[in-house]
């Protein structure tokens, strides 16, 4: 309990102004630390409590089994079918986050390799500062920029993809047109930019922990710099990169405003095409919260919120554990 040496004995004899406050202080900081746990538990409890009337009305499973969200069909007494199916939001969250991860992870690995292994020292500080600035830009700014700058820029590519891949067998439905801009794909693209800095930061940290001896041995054996990266840096960092990717995924899952602005907010059902409009769990809450007037509408949004909490916590905890274990492995 007392990691710091020297405190126990003199306490009884020396009684300065501060000594009476020592215990008070200790309890105060302990209360502050306990608050973190209280907040997390209370978040779960209060969300479920708000969602409870709707859960009692429709049952838990009916939410996940239906992809039809039609608040106007809800009545105060009707129990079946559940007008608030949320499978399409789970689908939207999964698809946009996966697109973001697939796009962001390779770029993040490349950037952090450049920053840790190749860039000259004076450039490193500047470049990593710039990449970190991407994390500082607020979500609402990404969304606004996404609507007016990114969508016009990707529209030709989107139309081209819908014309070529959209008619292909098997994968065709995933890329079917028409492409208006607001879509899963653009939402994933914006998310990719937003999670890039966090993945880069963790990858950089992971690459920096690779022992210099390993790298020097590779070089001394005649490896080129890229071979050194491939043989000494990357194998050691595999699980660290995985952890970074999962933490990026966790960030993407919860992103709200930017996604709400570029995904099109089609809550009615699952859209198969990645080029079509959809909704995510976070976006539907932001989009409908202030207009939720139908019976059980607000409570059903709280159900979505509770599931989002569960998913985000699970993803983040897994990511955190992977990164933490990697660090311990190296240490």
């Amino acid at each position, binding site marked *: 309990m007392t990691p710091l040496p020297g405190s126990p004995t003199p306490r009884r004899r020396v009684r300065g102004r501060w000594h009476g406050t020592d215990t008070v202080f200790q309890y105060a900081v302990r209360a502050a630390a306990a608050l*973190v746990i209280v*907040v997390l538990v209370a978040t779960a409890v209060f969300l479920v409590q708000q969602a409870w009337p709707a859960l009692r009305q429709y049952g838990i499973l009916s939410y996940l089994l239906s992809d039809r969200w039609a608040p106007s069909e809800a009545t105060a007494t009707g129990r079946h079918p559940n007008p608030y199916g949320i499978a399409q939001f789970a689908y939207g969250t999964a698809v946009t986050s996966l697109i973001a991860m697939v796009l962001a992870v390779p770029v993040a690995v490349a*950037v952090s390799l*450049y920053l840790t292994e190749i860039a000259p020292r004076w450039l490193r500080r500047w470049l990593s500062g710039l990449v970190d600035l991407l994390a500082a830009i607020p979500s609402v700014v990404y969304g606004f920029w996404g609507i007016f700058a990114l969508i016009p820029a990707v529209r030709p590519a989107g139309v081209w993809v819908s014309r070529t891949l959209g008619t292909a067998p098997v994968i065709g439905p995933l890329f079917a047109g028409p492409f208006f801009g607001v879509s899963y794909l653009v939402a994933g693209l914006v998310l990719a930019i937003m999670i890039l800095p966090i993945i880069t930061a963790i990858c950089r940290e992971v690459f920096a922990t690779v022992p210099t001896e390993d790298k020097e041995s590779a*070089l001394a054996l005649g490896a080129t710099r890229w071979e050194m990266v491939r043989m000494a840096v990357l194998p050691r960092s595999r699980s660290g990169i995985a952890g970074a990717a999962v933490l990026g995924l966790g960030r993407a899952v919860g992103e709200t405003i930017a996604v709400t602005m570029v995904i099109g907010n089609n809550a009615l059902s699952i859209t198969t095409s990645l080029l079509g409009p959809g909704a995510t769990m976070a976006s539907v809450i932001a989009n409908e919260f202030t207009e939720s007037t139908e019976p059980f509408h607000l409570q059903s949004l*709280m159900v979505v919120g509770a599931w989002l*909490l569960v998913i985000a916590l699970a993803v983040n905890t897994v990511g955190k554990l992977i990164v933490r274990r990697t660090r311990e492995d190296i240490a």
Partner: protein
Amino acid sequence: MAAPASTSASAARRGLPRRLSVNTAMTVVLCLVTAGVVALLLWILGYVAGQGLKYLGPMFLTHTPPGDPSQAGGGFANGIVGSLVIVGIATGLSVPVGIAAAVHMVEYRGRLARACGFLTDVLIGLPSIVTGAFVYALWVAHFGFSGLAGAVALGLIMLPLVIRATAEVLRLVPVELREASLALGVSRARTVMSIVLPTARSGIVTGVMLAVARAMGETAPLLLTALGNDLFLETNPTRRMSTLSLQIFSNAITGFATAQARAWAGTLTLVVIVLVLSVGARLISRRGIVRSAR
């Protein structure tokens, strides 16, 4: 970009030209990807600046929006004031608690401290809209939408950021300083207050500034708590309030070019505030005492 070292073994030499060209190719690829990311950042910032400067001016900073969003003119004065009030209260709530929790984590340790450390990381990953929904259930459902509820939500978002940043710098404070203080008969509490925290000050300030920057840009939780008030200047935090971020959001998604012009000016204002805080935080941390002890 030559290989840093080559062996004299002939077997290794045979594939050398190919290996060297692979090395060069990969170096170029990594360079280009990094340049692409920097270009992306410049594109975003440049676009925001270009659009924002069209309307940003004294009028924008000192006036409220016109009652009819399709009309030109007006500004986000109410949102700017609202942001300052709400983030100010959120900072006041989260910083003392966050620092105290970090002190417990680093100075006292134990099981609670370990749990707190892990849960702080978990809390950082909590989606901000979920925090908003929590504060809605906790507060708004009983007392109605208010700036104060928004401040509580932002405070909860800032809390884990403050804790983590503070804990990180506290760990850098040399143990010898604490030992010296305790050896003089100074109490634990006073050692923390007069020795440890002042030594870590610049690092804590950095962390707080980054947390404030984050809170400034948050929108989603405020939709569920402060709600927004696009009409007039509200300085009473017990009523619903607008913030810069909320006004950007609500004006951006209207179809009116006039409202969007205001939203772009607001975006530029917000980005400048956030970047000044982030870059400022970096500069402070670079000069910090603790940093040199690392």
